[in-house]
C-alpha cells in the first residue's frame, strides 16, 4: 500500500520538473553541462589527450553519436548555425535525427552549407570545403583509444599515453608494412598531435587526415559510450604515423571524378552500378558537391543541376 503512495508522490514532483515545463535549453541540465564544459577546456589545453568525463545518457542510443551530441549540447547557443553530417551527407537519416533533436532543444538555425555553419557535428568525415577560423567541428567517435587494437585494457593504454610509450603501436605498423608492403589501415588512421599524444581521429578516411593538420577550426571529439573527449585546437600539428621509407598516402582516386559535379579533389563514394558492370563515383560531401554543381552550371550558363538531381 505504502509503495503506491510513494510512487505517486515521486511522480508528481518529477513531472513538475520534467516535460510539462519543458526541458532545459540543450536538454542537459546545467550541472552536466558545466562538467562537460570544464572537461572540454582541459581537452583543448592538452591537444590529443583523452579526458575522462561522466557522459550522461541522452535520448539517442550509445554508439549513435552521443559523445558528439553531449559536446554540441554543452557548447551550443541560440545564435549558432548548426550543420550535422553523417558520412559527409546532410540528409542521412541519423544526421537528420540528431539535427532534429538539437534544434528541438535549442531552437537554433540549421544549415547544410559548410561555409555558413558555426558549429558542425560530423560522423566519419571532415568537410571537403575548407573550414574557417571561428568554426567548431565536433566529431562523433566510436573508439577514442588509438592503442585499443594493440592493447585492449584501458588502464594499460592510459599508462602508455602517460609515458609517451608508443612502441607497441609502431611495432604493429611495422608488421603491417612487412606483411603487406604498406600500412593497411583505411579509416581511423592513427595520428600524432602536437608531437606528444597519439590520437584516434575517428573513422574518417585517410583523405581527411591531412586536413586535421593546422586546421583553422577548433576540432572537438566526443566518445560517449567510452566516456572520453579530446580536442585539437586550431593551427595545431597533426601528423599521421608513418615510416620514412613508407610514407603515408591518401586514397588513390586517380582517374575518377564525381559523376554529378566532376570534382576530382573531394572524397568520392563508390556506388556499384545497377547493371553490375563496374562502379559510379560521386562526392561523399553532399554540400561540397551541390556547391560545385552550382559553380559549374553558372560557368556553363545552363541549368545542369536539375537534370542531375532527378537522376539520384
Amino acid at each position: 500500500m505504502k509503495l503506491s503512495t510513494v510512487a505517486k508522490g515521486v511522480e508528481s514532483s518529477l513531472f513538475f520538473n520534467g516535460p510539462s515545463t519543458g526541458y532545459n535549453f540543450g536538454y542537459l541540465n546545467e550541472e552536466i553541462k558545466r562538467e562537460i564544459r570544464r572537461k572540454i577546456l582541459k581537452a583543448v589545453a592538452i591537444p590529443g589527450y583523452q579526458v575522462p568525463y561522466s557522459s550522461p545518457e541522452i535520448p539517442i542510443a550509445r554508439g549513435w553519436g552521443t559523445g558528439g551530441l553531449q559536446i554540441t549540447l554543452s557548447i551550443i547557443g541560440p545564435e549558432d548555425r548548426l550543420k550535422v553530417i553523417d558520412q559527409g551527407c546532410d540528409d542521412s537519416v541519423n544526421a537528420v535525427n540528431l539535427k532534429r533533436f538539437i534544434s528541438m532543444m535549442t531552437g537554433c538555425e540549421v544549415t547544410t552549407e559548410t561555409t555558413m555553419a558555426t558549429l558542425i557535428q560530423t560522423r566519419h568525415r571532415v568537410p571537403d570545403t575548407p573550414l574557417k577560423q571561428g568554426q567548431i567541428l565536433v566529431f562523433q567517435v566510436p573508439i577514442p583509444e588509438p592503442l585499443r587494437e594493440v592493447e585492449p585494457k584501458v588502464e594499460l593504454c592510459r599508462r602508455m599515453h602517460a609515458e609517451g610509450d608508443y612502441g607497441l603501436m609502431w611495432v604493429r605498423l611495422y608488421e603491417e608494412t612487412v606483411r603487406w608492403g604498406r600500412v593497411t589501415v583505411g579509416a581511423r588512421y592513427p595520428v600524432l598531435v602536437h608531437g606528444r599524444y597519439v590520437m584516434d581521429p575517428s573513422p574518417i578516411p585517410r583523405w581527411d587526415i591531412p586536413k586535421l593538420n593546422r586546421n583553422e577550426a577548433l576540432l572537438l571529439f566526443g566518445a560517449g559510450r567510452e566516456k572520453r573527449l579530446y580536442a585539437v585546437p586550431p593551427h595545431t600539428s597533426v601528423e599521421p604515423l608513418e615510416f620514412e621509407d613508407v610514407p603515408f598516402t591518401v586514397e588513390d582516386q586517380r582517374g575518377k571524378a564525381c559523376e554529378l559535379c566532376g570534382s576530382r579533389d573531394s572524397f568520392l563514394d563508390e556506388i556499384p552500378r545497377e547493371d553490375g558492370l563496374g562502379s559510379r563515383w560521386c562526392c561523399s560531401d553532399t554540400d561540397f558537391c551541390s556547391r560545385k554543381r552550382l559553380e559549374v552550371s553558372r560557368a556553363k550558363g545552363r541549368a545542369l543541376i536539375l537534370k542531375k538531381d532527378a537522376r539520384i
Partner: protein
Amino acid sequence: MFTLTEEVLRVQRCYRTLLHVLSRPGTLARLDLPIERKNRLVSVPSPLLLACECLLDEKVTVSGLTERGRLWAEEISRGMRVKLAELEEADFVLSGVEASASELLSLKRGSLLAPEEGATLFVYVEEGIKGDAGLLGFAGPGVKGRLSLRVSAAVLDWASQRGKLCFEYPMGFEAFLFDREGNVLGIPRACEIEVLKPRRG
C-alpha cells in the same frame, strides 16, 4: 519544448568566449558582462564572477592567490557552495595579477596519468590587459605561426613570472586573464609566451 533563461544564456556565451580564447592564445575577446552586479558577492569583480558562475560548482574546489584572490575565493565559496581548498589542491584559483613565480609554482599541475587535473587560474588585471608597456609573443597550439599582443605593465610582469616556471608537459595549469572591461585572454599550459619588448627600467 525547452526553456532558456537569462542566466543560462549568459553562462553559455561566457563559456564560448572562454573556449575561443583558450583555443587561440594571444587573441583577446570580450565577455558579455551583466549590467547589475549581484550584491551578495560584491567584492568579486564581475568578469571573474561570471567565469565562476560558468565553470564552478560543488563538484570542484576553489582557492585564492594574492590577498585579493583569497578574499574572492572565500566569497565565491560562501556564495556558490564551492568547496575551499589549499592552493596546492584547488581546481580553480582566483588571483590578482601580482602573483609571483614562486606562488604560481604551487598550483596543481596534474600528473602524467591525469594531466587534466592541473588547475585553472583566473587572474584579474585591474589596470587592463591592453596597454603600451610592451609586446608579448605567443606560440604553440592554437597560434598560427607567431602572434603578438600589446599589453599593460601588469600583464607583462605576470607573463615574465609565468615564464620562469618550468613544468613537464603535459603537466601544468591554464590561465585566463580578465580585466574590468571584460576583455579576456586565454593561456593554456602548452602556450609559449615571449616578452618581446620589455618595459625599460
